[in-house]
């Protein structure tokens, strides 16, 4: 089925990351490794460590009630972590649905559901009005 409004590049990117997220689903072993490598257990397999996520939160001066946009959030790293650590609200966006569902499940388990929303959207065409957010964070999205 062709997606209306999505460019060929977006469709290919979504398909590639959907496959990757499905293939490399978190397991007990991968979570243990993630803890040892980056200090987190949010299903991330990138290079942003907990210390760096904390630095991002500090630079953004996140406070309870602030609304944070995490572009390319994947399974919720680092947006959900920052919501948990600072009390802010978070909207996460990404293109594949699989990790967004995982992120919503984690938000529920962490007691963050009432402060969390996940939106399937490409970073180049975010469906939000200007000045909607107090802060924006992303990791390995704008390359």
């Amino acid at each position, binding site marked *: 089925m062709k997606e209306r409004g999505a460019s060929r590049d977006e469709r290919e990117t979504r398909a*590639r990351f959907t496959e990757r997220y499905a*293939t*490399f689903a978190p*397991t007990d*072993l*991968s979570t243990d*490794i993630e803890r*040892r*490598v*980056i200090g987190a257990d949010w299903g991330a*397999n990138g*290079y*942003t*460590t907990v210390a*760096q996520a904390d*630095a*991002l939160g500090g*630079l*953004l001066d996140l406070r*309870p*009630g*602030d*609304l944070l946009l995490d572009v390319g959030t994947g399974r919720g790293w680092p947006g959900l972590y920052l919501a948990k650590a600072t009390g802010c*609200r978070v*909207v996460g966006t990404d293109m594949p649905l699989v990790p967004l569902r995982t992120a919503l499940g984690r938000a529920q388990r962490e007691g963050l559901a*009432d*402060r969390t*929303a996940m*939106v399937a959207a490409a970073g180049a065409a975010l469906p*939000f*009005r200007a*000045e*909607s*957010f*107090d*802060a*924006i*964070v*992303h*990791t*390995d*999205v*704008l*390359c």
Partner: protein
Amino acid sequence: MAFITTFVTPGLSPSDRRRADRSGPRAVATRRDHRQLLRSAGFAAVEETDLTPDFLITSRAWSAENTAHADELAALVPPGAFEERQRERCTQLVAVEDGLLKRALFSATRPLRLRARPSLGLAGAGFGREA
């Protein structure tokens, strides 16, 4: 806004640039300096903190952990997927060690920062009211 990203080291020769493009994350495509991009988008107070040394440490840690648990991890995914991922990580690690890729934290602010806006067009997501 604050973000972390990996990018091709500025000022490379054309051949090194091509190697960096092949070695880096698939999304590494821009030839524009991130600070220029931020300023042209209206952001101010742009700051850049080099994280490349930390990137090397983290890359080596991923590689070492995945190598140590290769058989177990490979058994969890379709044939060849783990090996392909390991090759990608290894290629990227070598590129960082060779100075072809860098990683940095960028932060920037909008001249007018609005806080605690009550209506964001997100009512369906459970927002749209003060927490």
